[in-house]
């Protein structure tokens, strides 16, 4: 058991190191974005003095290295800084209200929405993919297997917005079962939220199922030539039992890893679906912030995305290790 804890701690340390490297990359990349926030907000006719004043106020006049460590220091203490866009520049006209929106305040509700959508999608997509993958492996090379493969491959190959509009057409327009707009807001009940989230979740399910289902199928089929599978068949076990009881437990590691990658995608890569359904998730906020050069928000979003990837992969690693009895029960 000690060795497992050591492995987990090692992975955790590596994850933190990766996050640090990513933070440098994010900061450099964001600062290389063309354009300047002060210039963008004040417009073409701004006086150089006004631009300088805003730059000074936001700390943009500092050298990049200083700004990086200020940002990192703040982020380590949970302070992601203040949003540029929401800052009150009224002070420059002599009426400072003193109120500033922090990045955290801006991101928190959006991130919660994104997590909700990802969770709903995962609750549908993961079981569906596993069951389809197991059945495809069981009836490999049958009509069912081919139909499942063709369908999931078609859905993963189609653009997300197209899938979204097809679903809207069939489930909201022709058969008005679900709302086509997912404008959720605070104070909604869980049921209402769920109803509004269902269409985007179904769209995303179509996008991520193919990967997970095909990996489940492949990982299981890969093992079917193993001597212990032959042994199970020679013990007279039913084909279903052979696959679920004998193959699946040994195929978990690759499946878990693909699930983790897809979950990370659900958190970080769903901006198109958010736009189509007007879903107030973090993806939209991210794109908007890039548009207006709201650097603190962009950086915070990137950091959250990176952390999600690292965390989910770490979790997948740990679960893979735990699924292996050789590591769970050393000699």
């Amino acid at each position: 058991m000690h060795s497992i804890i050591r492995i987990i701690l090692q992975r955790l340390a590596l994850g933190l190191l990766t996050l640090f490297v990513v933070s440098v990359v994010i900061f450099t990349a964001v600062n290389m974005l063309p354009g300047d926030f002060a210039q963008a907000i004040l417009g073409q006719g701004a006086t150089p003095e006004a631009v300088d004043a805003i730059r000074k106020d936001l700390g943009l006049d500092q050298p990049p290295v200083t700004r990086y460590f200020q940002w990192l220091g703040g982020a380590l203490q949970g302070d992601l800084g203040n949003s540029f866009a929401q800052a009150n520049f009224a002070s420059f006209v002599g009426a400072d209200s003193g109120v500033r929106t922090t990045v955290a305040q801006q991101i928190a509700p959006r991130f919660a929405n994104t997590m909700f959508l990802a969770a709903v999608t995962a609750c549908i997509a993961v079981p569906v993919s596993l069951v389809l993958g197991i059945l495809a492996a069981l009836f490999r090379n049958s009509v069912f297997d081919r139909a499942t493969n063709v369908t999931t491959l078609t859905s993963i190959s189609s653009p997300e917005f197209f899938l979204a509009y097809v679903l809207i057409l069939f489930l909201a327009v022709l058969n008005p079962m679900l709302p086509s707009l997912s404008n959720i807001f605070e104070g909604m009940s869980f049921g209402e939220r769920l109803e509004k989230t269902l269409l985007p979740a179904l769209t995303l399910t179509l996008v991520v199922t193919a990967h997970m289902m095909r990996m489940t199928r492949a990982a299981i089929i890969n093992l079917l030539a193993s001597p212990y599978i032959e042994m199970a068949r020679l013990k007279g076990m039913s084909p279903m039992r052979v696959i679920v009881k004998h193959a699946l437990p040994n195929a978990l590691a690759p499946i878990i890893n693909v699930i983790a990658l897809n979950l990370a995608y659900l958190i970080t890569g769903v901006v198109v679906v958010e736009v189509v359904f007007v879903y107030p998730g973090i993806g939209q906020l991210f794109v908007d912030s890039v548009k207006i050069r709201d650097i603190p928000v962009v950086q915070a979003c990137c950091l959250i995305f990176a952390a999600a990837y690292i965390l989910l992969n770490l979790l997948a690693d740990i679960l893979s290790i735990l699924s292996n009895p050789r590591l769970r029960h050393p000699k």
Partner: protein
Amino acid sequence: MSALVEIRDLWIEGRSDETWSPIINGASLRLNKGEVLGLIGESGAGKSTLGLAAMGFTRDGVRISKGSVMFDGIDLINASAAKKRDLLGKRIAYVAQSAAASFNPAHKLIDQHTEGPVQHGVMSRAESVQDGIELYRRLRLPNPEEIGFRYPHQVSGGQLQRAMTAMAMSCRPDLIIFDEPTTALDVTTQIEVLASIRDIVEQFDTAAIYITHDLAVVAQMADRIKVLLKGDEVEEADTRTMLAQPKEDYTKTLWAVRAFERPQKPAVHTGATPVVSVQNVSAAYGKIQVLHDVSFDIHEGRTVAVVGESGSGKSTTARCITGLLPPTSGVIEFDGQPLPANYKSRNKDQLRQAQMIYQMADTALNPRTTIGDIIGRPVQFYMGLTGKQRRRRVEELLDEIELPAAQYYDRLPSELSGGQKQRIGIARALAAEPKFIICDEVTSALDQLVAEGILKLLARLQDDLKLSYMFITHDLATVKAIADEVVVMKEGKVVEQGPKHDMFVPPHHPYTDLLLSSVPEMDPDWLTNLLNERGVDNIGDAAVDKMS
């Protein structure tokens, strides 16, 4: 008496690429209740295929094209899948060659043991657990109460093989197919497993088909023996008749293989510098000490056989000599000069002088590289030959290992047989023009006839090129055939060493004695006599424990 199993004129085909080629050509077989039939032949003879067909089972890509398989009046070829599933595990059970690979790594032994009885509705889980513990006890497994609650990787190979026999017994079947159950085991472990299997088959009056390539083993286990060659039946007779008077020429050659033995060479005169001298070498993997103060010399033109069970440190010694595992203390000398401990600090000439031939020729050759390139690479690397010169040298080497260059130069390893692949491994070692070659179990994956060919080739090369061999093996018949001197290892220590003729004449170190007496002999009473001699409870483990 009506037969339990009756196979009539069975034809089986296997698919390779798009064509079906024959594996079994019209085999017939009859087995009565409680009888043990030995199926013997080289790899590729179709033994396993026939054994599985007796269960009504064919592997993927294999089909039965003609003939009938009857089990206790049930037609297994035309029976539905569900009907067959009902028989498998319950009335017909299977014991595989590698128990380590055939136990599911994800489940505990006892869960795999009880699966059959519970799913077939023979016993409840609780009953089956109790029965499993009882079977473990009868099979003389240590700690029968708790061994079942371990995962397969926590149990040794010999114990797993017995646990698999227990699993096969779990529903008290009428028939068990044993498919080379002891081939992967050490001789000392093999005895325990053989004795356990024989006892339990007798106790429950189970019929068995015992598949093996080892004649001496089958002589202990079977009432009757059937010999197969490339899918054709050669002959069948009861065990004693078969051993005493084999009729067919092929059977006679099988019987004669063990006769190969090199003449004794004159003693090395004292004061000669050995080619390789291992001096007080100790080594460790991490914190675990695996070699303790190992010393021996290998002289020019001589073969030193290093014998011992798996885990005794034979291969680790080889890794120390080649510098792959720098020893924690001690020195390796080559021609009287100490070698740097780590291979990275050795110069090209030092590396060239010691070459290796591996056990699994399959995995030791790059499957994507042609034979010409496999042998050509060391020719170029060590000897600096390129272009036409390199090709000429490779052709010479192919000639040396008795494979015509014109035919083999451009082939890939997958197009060669196991014995031919091992010859390529030998040519690759020779390409460096070494003085010393380490042969790591080079014949243990090969059939006896093929193995004999390899041993003879190695012997001729040694005479022609004055090579020195370190011959790692657990097979004492091989030692007898090729060694000049023998080093016996146990638990990382050298327990005895000396010239071969001394080693095979008593008195021995007790461990050498155990190894020697554990080699099965072609006498059907050998196992019974040996067990009587050692005392029934004193086989294998117990005997080893006593000595250490």
